């Protein structure tokens, strides 16, 4: 059901010049930071813990719990992940352009609660306007006294740096991001021992949180963790932005109440996706970004709930829902996703680097009509080598989970649309043209 829960992180969308300090202050900006600074860091953390805010970057880990795991050695650092590159996810891009002050305020609240010595906002390099907007916002915030020494006279001081990336999907993975922030190639680090909370940036304890995650903090501090928890159901509390794309009439970012809203609402409600284009039939949808296993129409009535989707064998992931209608060639769709992972593999692990390449080649050969009958088993065998047992969540064979995510689209497509693969192979070409 589409509920009437008010928007939290997108409330300022549409406010003229929403990215300026003036507009931000006129709409209640920095009140959350002021209130947080009047509380103890422990009290702020307790509110976030009560809220049960789940990370919005992909892994869905409780934000409050992550903070509580920060190891003792100091200095500790805070890194905000604005690298957003998961295919068909475009919410952080929008937040960076439309409401950069909210990200800065959330960053500062997080820095205060965790005692971070310095904060870095890592912004995907391609987001030129976003980088310009948040840089301008940071200048304004310093001049306003919200960042830097003795913030609002509270005695709390912290500096924030906007760090532009340079184009690499893998840098969204938190340990690769830290390597990149240290001026190196974006190679993920092994966990353990390199859990950011223990050995993060410069081998110091580090909190990594997503842009949307911290954008919720001003509201939570102002309205209480209980109020946040009052939205949604179970562990999926609050509202969340879902990036809807593909064959819907109104592809856009929608902030909706978690769990209570269903995929059917998101895709078909006139106020949300507005239904499939040309009144076509829904063929399949991906519930949480290109890394996630696919769902068919039989999953439409499931709530946008992290645990429900997890139990059904997929994930809400980065909050991107991709809709494919009956005209879609599923071989092509899974090939395109696989090619993406092959291209973006950092190359450190053999199953990911080589396996991704083989899968890319075999899918291309099927799609272009040169496939063989044995190819389906071959695909599944390679997938099984990358992610043994093809279970979800996948088993770990590599340093990060990019590799084990590669099978998602392939095993989904073969399971749901095996006939389509066979037609490609038997007829020597794509039936969709």
């Amino acid at each position, binding site marked *: 059901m589409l509920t009437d829960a008010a928007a939290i992180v997108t409330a300022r969308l549409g406010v003229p010049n929403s990215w300026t300090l003036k507009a931000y202050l006129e709409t209640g900006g920095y009140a959350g930071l002021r209130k947080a600074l009047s509380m103890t860091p422990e009290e702020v953390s307790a509110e976030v813990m009560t809220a049960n805010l789940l990370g919005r970057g992909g892994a869905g880990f409780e934000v409050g719990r992550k903070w509580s795991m920060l190891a003792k050695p100091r200095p500790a650092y805070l890194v905000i992940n604005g690298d957003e590159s998961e295919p068909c996810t*475009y919410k952080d*891009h929008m937040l960076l352009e439309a409401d950069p002050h909210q990200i800065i305020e959330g960053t500062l609240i997080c820095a205060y609660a965790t005692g971070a010595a310095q904060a870095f906002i890592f912004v995907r*390099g*391609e987001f*030129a*306007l976003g*980088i310009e907007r948040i*840089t301008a916002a940071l200048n304004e915030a310093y001049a306003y006294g919200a960042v830097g020494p003795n913030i609002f006279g509270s005695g709390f001081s912290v500096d924030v740096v906007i760090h532009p990336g340079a*184009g690499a999907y893998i840098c969204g993975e938190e340990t690769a991001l830290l390597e990149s922030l240290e*001026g190196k190639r974006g190679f993920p680090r092994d966990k353990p021992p390199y859990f950011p909370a223990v050995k993060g940036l410069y081998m110091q304890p580090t909190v990594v949180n997503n842009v949307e995650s911290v954008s919720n903090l001003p509201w939570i501090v102002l309205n209480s963790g209980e109020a946040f928890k009052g939205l949604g159901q179970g562990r999926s509390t609050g509202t969340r932005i879902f990036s809807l794309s593909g064959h819907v009439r109104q592809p856009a970012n929608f902030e909706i109440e978690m769990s209570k809203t269903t995929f059917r609402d998101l895709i078909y409600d006139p106020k949300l996706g507005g239904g499939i284009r040309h009144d076509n039939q829904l063929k399949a949808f991906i519930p949480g970004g290109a890394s996630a296993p696919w769902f068919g129409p039989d999953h439409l009535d499931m709530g946008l709930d992290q645990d429900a989707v997890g139990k059904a064998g997929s994930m809400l992931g980065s909050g991107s829902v991709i809709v494919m209608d009956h005209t879609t060639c599923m071989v092509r769709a899974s090939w395109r996703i696989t090619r993406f992972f092959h291209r973006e593999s950092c190359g450190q692990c053999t199953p990911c680097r080589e396996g991704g390449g083989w899968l890319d080649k075999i899918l291309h050969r099927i799609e272009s009509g040169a496939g063989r009958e044995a190819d389906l088993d071959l695909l599944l065998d390679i997938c099984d080598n990358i992610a043994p047992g093809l279970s979800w969540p996948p088993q770990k064979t590599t340093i990060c989970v990019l590799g084990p995510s590669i099978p998602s689209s392939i095993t989904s497509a073969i399971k749901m649309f095996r006939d389509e693969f066979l037609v490609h192979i038997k007829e020597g070409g794509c039936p969709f043209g």
Partner: protein
Amino acid sequence: MARLTPDNVRRCRDLIGLYPQSRSALIPMLHVAQEQDGWLTPEAMEHVGEMLDITPAEVYGTASFYDMLFTTPVGRHLVSVCTNLACLLNGGVELLEHAEASLGVAAGGTTDDGEFTLEEVECIAFCGAAPCLAVNWRFFGSVTTDAFDHLVDDLRTGRLADEVPPHGTLCRVRRNVGLTAGDATATPVAAPAAGTTEGA
């Protein structure tokens, strides 16, 4: 094709000052170098390495990992057409084919006049407006083939010069304050904002 200009050396020093460890400034400095020349010249990379006390090989080794950093020349306009899933489902491949025909270069190529480099890219996070593309990382959505040709025309004639700066220029807003939290004597970073995109 040169080392960094004195102004850019100052900008790079300011960047180094923002991080606990100097090497963290490497990628932001490479963006400055790419803004200066449109791509990363060997001389500029060597200069950056000198400033950070790392070898040119380490600079190149890092730069070559990243899609946005070019170690060979590119056109003044880098046209990046997305063909990832949301765009694929909405005509992105056809848009790329049209772009190739219209510009007369295959993806990866540069026009003879050095005006345009065309590339096929992965998702650029503008999926609500698929099919989409970026020119020097300024975004254009719901791009029809006609709209593409108009866009190229506008870029060629300079009508979009304000919105789309030359390739390499990422952020036209300069940070105007140094680190101040732990060090009251910190000096503000050099040049203040040189025009923003506000209102764009």
